[in-house]
Protein backbone atom coordinates (compact mmCIF):
# COMPACT_ATOMS: atom_id res chain seq x y z
CA UNK A 1 0.00 0.00 0.00
CA UNK A 2 2.97 2.27 -0.52
CA UNK A 3 1.07 3.22 -3.71
CA UNK A 4 -1.35 5.06 -1.44
CA UNK A 5 1.39 7.43 -0.26
CA UNK A 6 2.36 8.12 -3.88
CA UNK A 7 -1.30 8.72 -4.81
CA UNK A 8 -1.55 11.25 -1.98
CA UNK A 9 1.55 12.95 -3.37
CA UNK A 10 -0.06 13.12 -6.84
CA UNK A 11 -3.34 14.55 -5.52
CA UNK A 12 -1.53 17.08 -3.36
CA UNK A 13 0.72 18.23 -6.23
CA UNK A 14 -2.14 18.37 -8.75
CA UNK A 15 -4.10 20.50 -6.29
CA UNK A 16 -1.12 22.83 -5.85
CA UNK A 17 -0.73 23.13 -9.65
CA UNK A 18 -4.47 23.76 -10.12
CA UNK A 19 -4.31 26.48 -7.48
CA UNK A 20 -1.26 28.08 -9.05
CA UNK A 21 -2.74 28.01 -12.55
CA UNK A 22 -6.16 29.20 -11.42
CA UNK A 23 -8.05 26.06 -12.51
CA UNK A 24 -11.60 25.83 -11.21
CA UNK A 25 -11.78 22.17 -12.03
CA UNK A 26 -9.19 19.61 -13.06
CA UNK A 27 -10.24 17.60 -16.13
CA UNK A 28 -7.24 15.46 -17.05
CA UNK A 29 -4.05 14.39 -15.37
CA UNK A 30 -1.32 12.56 -17.20
CA UNK A 31 0.97 10.44 -15.04
CA UNK A 32 4.03 8.48 -16.05
CA UNK A 33 5.05 5.49 -13.98
CA UNK A 34 8.53 4.03 -14.40
CA UNK A 35 8.80 0.25 -14.31
CA UNK A 36 11.81 0.28 -11.99
CA UNK A 37 9.52 1.16 -9.07
CA UNK A 38 7.07 -1.65 -9.94
CA UNK A 39 4.05 0.35 -8.86
CA UNK A 40 0.84 -1.67 -8.84
CA UNK A 41 -1.33 0.33 -11.19
CA UNK A 42 -4.69 -0.96 -9.99
CA UNK A 43 -3.87 0.04 -6.40
CA UNK A 44 -2.59 3.43 -7.55
CA UNK A 45 -5.75 4.03 -9.61
CA UNK A 46 -7.98 2.94 -6.75
CA UNK A 47 -6.14 5.21 -4.30
CA UNK A 48 -6.37 8.15 -6.72
CA UNK A 49 -10.13 7.62 -7.11
CA UNK A 50 -10.56 7.51 -3.32
CA UNK A 51 -8.44 10.57 -2.63
CA UNK A 52 -10.04 12.91 -5.20
CA UNK A 53 -10.88 16.32 -3.79
CA UNK A 54 -13.83 18.43 -4.92
CA UNK A 55 -11.78 20.19 -7.57
CA UNK A 56 -10.70 16.82 -8.95
CA UNK A 57 -14.05 15.07 -8.77
CA UNK A 58 -14.42 14.74 -12.57
CA UNK A 59 -10.70 14.40 -13.30
CA UNK A 60 -9.54 11.55 -15.50
CA UNK A 61 -6.16 10.05 -14.66
CA UNK A 62 -4.22 8.73 -17.64
CA UNK A 63 -1.40 6.53 -16.45
CA UNK A 64 1.36 5.48 -18.83
CA UNK A 65 4.07 3.03 -17.90
CA UNK A 66 7.63 3.65 -19.04
CA UNK A 67 10.23 0.92 -19.41
CA UNK A 68 13.20 1.38 -17.08
CA UNK A 69 16.27 1.96 -19.21
CA UNK A 70 19.64 1.75 -17.49
CA UNK A 71 23.04 2.78 -18.85
CA UNK A 72 26.38 1.74 -17.41
CA UNK A 73 28.61 4.73 -16.71
CA UNK A 74 31.72 2.57 -16.98
CA UNK A 75 31.27 0.66 -20.26
CA UNK A 76 28.29 2.48 -21.79
CA UNK A 77 26.11 -0.64 -22.07
CA UNK A 78 22.35 0.02 -22.07
CA UNK A 79 19.73 -2.43 -20.85
CA UNK A 80 16.11 -2.68 -19.73
CA UNK A 81 15.23 -3.57 -16.12
CA UNK A 82 13.16 -6.73 -15.81
CA UNK A 83 11.44 -7.54 -12.56
CA UNK A 84 11.05 -11.21 -13.50
CA UNK A 85 14.77 -11.73 -13.08
CA UNK A 86 14.79 -10.54 -9.46
CA UNK A 87 14.14 -12.34 -6.23
CA UNK A 88 11.06 -11.01 -4.47
CA UNK A 89 12.81 -9.42 -1.51
CA UNK A 90 15.15 -7.40 -3.73
CA UNK A 91 12.29 -6.38 -6.04
CA UNK A 92 10.38 -5.12 -3.02
CA UNK A 93 13.36 -3.11 -1.71
CA UNK A 94 13.65 -1.45 -5.15
CA UNK A 95 9.90 -0.83 -5.12
CA UNK A 96 10.22 1.27 -1.96
CA UNK A 97 13.43 3.08 -2.90
CA UNK A 98 14.33 2.62 -6.59
CA UNK A 99 17.93 3.77 -5.94
CA UNK A 100 18.43 0.51 -4.05
CA UNK A 101 18.84 -0.88 -7.58
CA UNK A 102 22.46 0.25 -7.22
CA UNK A 103 22.86 -2.15 -4.31
CA UNK A 104 21.61 -5.24 -6.12
CA UNK A 105 21.80 -4.67 -9.89
CA UNK A 106 25.07 -4.70 -11.80
CA UNK A 107 25.79 -3.92 -15.44
CA UNK A 108 25.21 -7.22 -17.26
CA UNK A 109 28.24 -6.55 -19.43
CA UNK A 110 30.97 -5.31 -17.06
CA UNK A 111 29.51 -5.89 -13.57
CA UNK A 112 29.60 -2.25 -12.41
CA UNK A 113 26.94 -0.86 -10.03
CA UNK A 114 27.67 2.61 -11.43
CA UNK A 115 24.82 3.01 -13.88
CA UNK A 116 22.43 5.77 -14.79
CA UNK A 117 18.67 5.39 -14.75
CA UNK A 118 17.97 6.99 -18.14
CA UNK A 119 14.19 6.71 -17.81
CA UNK A 120 11.46 4.79 -16.07
CA UNK A 121 12.53 5.38 -12.45
CA UNK A 122 9.28 6.18 -10.64
CA UNK A 123 6.20 8.34 -10.70
CA UNK A 124 6.10 11.60 -12.63
CA UNK A 125 3.37 14.14 -13.32
CA UNK A 126 3.35 14.82 -17.06
CA UNK A 127 0.46 17.30 -17.42
CA UNK A 128 -2.55 18.76 -15.63
CA UNK A 129 -5.42 20.18 -17.68
CA UNK A 130 -8.63 21.77 -16.52
CA UNK A 131 -11.16 24.56 -16.72
CA UNK A 132 -10.30 28.08 -15.68
Amino acid at each position, binding site marked *: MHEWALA*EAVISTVSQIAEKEGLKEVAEVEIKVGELQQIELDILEFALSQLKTLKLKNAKFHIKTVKAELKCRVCGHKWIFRKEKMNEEIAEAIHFVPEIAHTYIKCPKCGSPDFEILKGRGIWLESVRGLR
Partner: protein
Amino acid sequence: MADPRIGIIEERLKGVNNIIAVSSGKGGVGKSLIASTLALTLAKRGYKVGLFDLDFTSPSTHVILGVEGLQPKEEKGIIPPQVHGLRYMSIVYYSGEYASPLRGVDVSNALIELLAITRWNNLDFLIIDMPPGISDATLDIIRLIKRINFLMVTTPSRLAFETVRKLIDLLSELRIPIMGVIENMKMKESQFIQQQVEDRGITFLGEIPFDIELEEAIGNVNKLLVTQFGERLEEIAKDLEP
Protein backbone atom coordinates in the same frame (compact mmCIF):
# COMPACT_ATOMS: atom_id res chain seq x y z
CA MET B 1 6.17 18.76 -15.53
CA ALA B 2 6.45 17.99 -11.81
CA ASP B 3 7.78 15.49 -9.34
CA PRO B 4 4.65 14.71 -7.29
CA ARG B 5 6.69 13.53 -4.31
CA ILE B 6 7.98 17.01 -3.49
CA GLY B 7 4.48 18.39 -2.85
CA ILE B 8 3.69 15.97 -0.03
CA ILE B 9 6.85 16.34 2.08
CA GLU B 10 5.62 19.28 4.21
CA GLU B 11 2.40 17.36 4.85
CA ARG B 12 4.35 14.28 5.98
CA LEU B 13 6.27 16.38 8.50
CA LYS B 14 3.43 18.56 9.74
CA GLY B 15 3.02 16.56 12.97
CA VAL B 16 6.69 17.00 13.86
CA ASN B 17 7.40 19.93 16.17
CA ASN B 18 11.21 20.17 15.94
CA ILE B 19 13.36 18.91 13.08
CA ILE B 20 17.08 18.82 13.83
CA ALA B 21 19.78 17.96 11.30
CA VAL B 22 22.93 16.77 13.08
CA SER B 23 25.57 17.91 10.67
CA SER B 24 29.26 18.64 10.11
CA GLY B 25 31.56 19.54 7.30
CA LYS B 26 33.77 16.56 8.12
CA GLY B 27 33.22 12.86 8.62
CA GLY B 28 34.38 10.99 11.71
CA VAL B 29 33.50 13.74 14.20
CA GLY B 30 30.77 11.72 15.94
CA LYS B 31 27.61 12.90 14.19
CA SER B 32 25.93 9.50 14.17
CA LEU B 33 26.73 8.80 17.82
CA ILE B 34 25.54 12.26 18.82
CA ALA B 35 22.36 12.01 16.69
CA SER B 36 21.51 8.54 18.04
CA THR B 37 22.34 9.30 21.68
CA LEU B 38 20.55 12.64 21.55
CA ALA B 39 17.44 10.91 20.15
CA LEU B 40 17.61 8.21 22.86
CA THR B 41 18.13 10.82 25.59
CA LEU B 42 15.19 12.93 24.48
CA ALA B 43 13.01 9.80 24.32
CA LYS B 44 14.15 8.83 27.81
CA ARG B 45 13.17 12.29 28.99
CA GLY B 46 9.61 11.66 27.82
CA TYR B 47 9.52 13.15 24.34
CA LYS B 48 8.23 11.45 21.19
CA VAL B 49 11.29 11.16 19.03
CA GLY B 50 12.13 9.96 15.52
CA LEU B 51 15.60 9.22 14.18
CA PHE B 52 16.24 9.28 10.44
CA ASP B 53 19.62 8.11 9.12
CA LEU B 54 20.20 10.17 6.01
CA ASP B 55 23.75 8.98 5.48
CA PHE B 56 22.63 6.67 2.68
CA THR B 57 26.03 5.58 1.43
CA SER B 58 27.52 5.02 4.91
CA PRO B 59 24.67 4.44 7.36
CA SER B 60 25.77 3.51 10.87
CA THR B 61 23.04 4.43 13.37
CA HIS B 62 21.60 0.88 13.11
CA VAL B 63 24.90 -0.41 14.48
CA ILE B 64 24.84 2.11 17.34
CA LEU B 65 21.26 1.13 18.20
CA GLY B 66 21.92 -2.59 17.72
CA VAL B 67 19.07 -2.91 15.20
CA GLU B 68 18.75 -6.22 13.40
CA GLY B 69 16.04 -7.91 11.38
CA LEU B 70 13.52 -5.08 11.59
CA GLN B 71 11.32 -3.88 8.74
CA PRO B 72 9.01 -0.85 8.54
CA LYS B 73 5.28 -1.49 8.51
CA GLU B 74 3.49 -0.71 5.26
CA GLU B 75 0.33 1.27 5.81
CA LYS B 76 -0.55 3.86 3.20
CA GLY B 77 3.17 4.59 3.09
CA ILE B 78 5.73 3.30 5.53
CA ILE B 79 5.69 3.55 9.31
CA PRO B 80 9.15 3.50 10.89
CA PRO B 81 9.42 0.74 13.51
CA GLN B 82 9.86 1.54 17.19
CA VAL B 83 13.42 0.93 18.34
CA HIS B 84 14.31 1.62 22.00
CA GLY B 85 11.43 4.10 22.18
CA LEU B 86 12.34 5.85 18.91
CA ARG B 87 10.64 5.80 15.52
CA TYR B 88 13.64 4.74 13.50
CA MET B 89 14.15 4.98 9.75
CA SER B 90 17.20 3.96 7.75
CA ILE B 91 18.00 2.86 4.23
CA VAL B 92 19.49 -0.33 5.69
CA TYR B 93 15.97 -1.77 5.89
CA TYR B 94 16.30 -2.02 2.10
CA SER B 95 20.03 -2.27 1.40
CA GLY B 96 20.72 -4.78 4.19
CA GLU B 97 24.38 -5.54 4.72
CA TYR B 98 25.36 -4.50 1.21
CA ALA B 99 26.97 -1.30 -0.06
CA SER B 100 24.81 1.43 -1.63
CA PRO B 101 27.04 3.10 -4.22
CA LEU B 102 24.98 6.22 -4.95
CA ARG B 103 25.84 9.32 -6.90
CA GLY B 104 24.44 12.71 -5.89
CA VAL B 105 21.36 12.48 -8.07
CA ASP B 106 20.53 9.07 -6.59
CA VAL B 107 21.03 10.36 -3.03
CA SER B 108 18.58 13.17 -3.81
CA ASN B 109 16.02 10.81 -5.29
CA ALA B 110 16.22 8.33 -2.41
CA LEU B 111 15.94 11.17 0.09
CA ILE B 112 12.87 12.64 -1.64
CA GLU B 113 11.29 9.18 -1.88
CA LEU B 114 11.72 8.43 1.82
CA LEU B 115 10.55 11.89 2.90
CA ALA B 116 7.47 11.47 0.68
CA ILE B 117 6.41 8.02 1.83
CA THR B 118 7.48 7.89 5.52
CA ARG B 119 4.68 8.59 7.97
CA TRP B 120 6.25 9.98 11.14
CA ASN B 121 2.89 11.05 12.58
CA ASN B 122 3.21 13.15 15.75
CA LEU B 123 6.70 13.71 17.10
CA ASP B 124 8.27 16.26 19.44
CA PHE B 125 11.63 15.79 17.75
CA LEU B 126 12.85 14.33 14.49
CA ILE B 127 16.63 13.95 14.63
CA ILE B 128 18.30 13.56 11.24
CA ASP B 129 21.76 12.02 11.05
CA MET B 130 23.28 13.83 8.06
CA PRO B 131 26.12 12.67 5.83
CA PRO B 132 29.25 14.84 6.13
CA GLY B 133 29.85 17.83 3.93
CA ILE B 134 27.86 20.43 2.05
CA SER B 135 26.58 18.29 -0.75
CA ASP B 136 23.31 16.90 -2.09
CA ALA B 137 21.74 15.74 1.17
CA THR B 138 22.46 19.04 2.94
CA LEU B 139 21.21 21.10 0.00
CA ASP B 140 18.09 18.94 -0.33
CA ILE B 141 17.25 19.18 3.35
CA ILE B 142 17.53 22.96 3.14
CA ARG B 143 15.38 22.98 -0.02
CA LEU B 144 12.71 20.53 1.11
CA ILE B 145 12.32 21.05 4.86
CA LYS B 146 11.62 24.70 5.50
CA ARG B 147 11.54 24.24 9.30
CA ILE B 148 14.96 22.58 9.52
CA ASN B 149 17.35 23.46 12.36
CA PHE B 150 21.00 22.52 12.23
CA LEU B 151 23.02 21.19 15.13
CA MET B 152 26.69 21.16 14.24
CA VAL B 153 29.35 18.78 15.45
CA THR B 154 33.07 19.44 15.36
CA THR B 155 36.14 18.03 17.05
CA PRO B 156 38.79 20.29 18.63
CA SER B 157 40.82 19.93 15.43
CA ARG B 158 41.18 22.99 13.28
CA LEU B 159 40.82 20.65 10.30
CA ALA B 160 37.30 19.72 11.37
CA PHE B 161 36.37 23.24 12.36
CA GLU B 162 37.56 24.66 9.06
CA THR B 163 34.77 22.71 7.31
CA VAL B 164 32.20 23.40 10.06
CA ARG B 165 32.98 27.10 9.82
CA LYS B 166 32.10 27.06 6.12
CA LEU B 167 28.83 25.28 6.80
CA ILE B 168 28.02 27.81 9.56
CA ASP B 169 28.78 30.70 7.21
CA LEU B 170 26.61 29.21 4.46
CA LEU B 171 23.67 28.50 6.75
CA SER B 172 23.94 31.95 8.34
CA GLU B 173 23.89 33.55 4.91
CA LEU B 174 20.79 31.53 4.01
CA ARG B 175 19.21 32.41 7.38
CA ILE B 176 18.82 28.76 8.32
CA PRO B 177 18.61 28.36 12.12
CA ILE B 178 21.66 26.85 13.83
CA MET B 179 20.87 25.53 17.31
CA GLY B 180 24.51 25.48 18.20
CA VAL B 181 27.81 23.64 17.99
CA ILE B 182 28.99 20.66 20.03
CA GLU B 183 32.73 20.14 20.41
CA ASN B 184 33.20 16.38 20.53
CA MET B 185 36.25 14.23 21.46
CA LYS B 186 37.86 16.95 23.53
CA MET B 187 41.25 15.81 24.78
CA LYS B 188 42.87 18.88 26.28
CA GLU B 189 41.94 22.30 27.56
CA SER B 190 41.44 24.85 24.80
CA GLN B 191 39.01 27.69 24.17
CA PHE B 192 39.70 27.80 20.44
CA ILE B 193 36.46 26.23 19.16
CA GLN B 194 34.21 27.98 21.69
CA GLN B 195 35.78 31.31 20.82
CA GLN B 196 35.44 30.76 17.08
CA VAL B 197 31.80 29.68 17.44
CA GLU B 198 30.80 32.53 19.72
CA ASP B 199 32.61 35.07 17.54
CA ARG B 200 30.16 34.07 14.82
CA GLY B 201 27.19 34.69 17.08
CA ILE B 202 26.40 30.98 17.30
CA THR B 203 25.60 29.14 20.55
CA PHE B 204 28.38 26.92 21.86
CA LEU B 205 26.37 24.01 23.27
CA GLY B 206 29.27 22.44 25.10
CA GLU B 207 32.13 20.01 24.88
CA ILE B 208 32.18 16.25 25.22
CA PRO B 209 35.45 14.71 26.43
CA PHE B 210 36.99 11.89 24.40
CA ASP B 211 35.46 8.80 25.97
CA ILE B 212 37.63 5.72 25.82
CA GLU B 213 34.70 3.52 26.96
CA LEU B 214 32.38 4.60 24.17
CA GLU B 215 33.35 1.97 21.60
CA GLU B 216 32.37 -0.77 24.06
CA ALA B 217 28.86 0.69 24.32
CA ILE B 218 28.11 0.63 20.59
CA GLY B 219 25.11 -1.62 20.00
CA ASN B 220 24.01 -1.46 23.63
CA VAL B 221 21.86 1.61 24.21
CA ASN B 222 21.57 1.20 27.99
CA LYS B 223 25.32 1.16 28.28
CA LEU B 224 25.62 4.06 25.83
CA LEU B 225 23.38 6.33 27.90
CA VAL B 226 25.51 5.89 31.03
CA THR B 227 28.87 6.49 29.41
CA GLN B 228 30.55 9.80 30.12
CA PHE B 229 29.63 10.69 26.54
CA GLY B 230 25.95 9.82 27.14
CA GLU B 231 25.76 11.74 30.40
CA ARG B 232 27.41 14.80 28.97
CA LEU B 233 25.06 14.73 25.98
CA GLU B 234 22.08 14.53 28.31
CA GLU B 235 23.18 17.83 29.86
CA ILE B 236 23.40 19.36 26.40
CA ALA B 237 20.00 17.89 25.41
CA LYS B 238 18.33 19.81 28.25
CA ASP B 239 19.31 23.04 26.51
CA LEU B 240 17.61 21.90 23.32
CA GLU B 241 14.27 21.22 24.94
CA PRO B 242 11.46 23.66 24.19
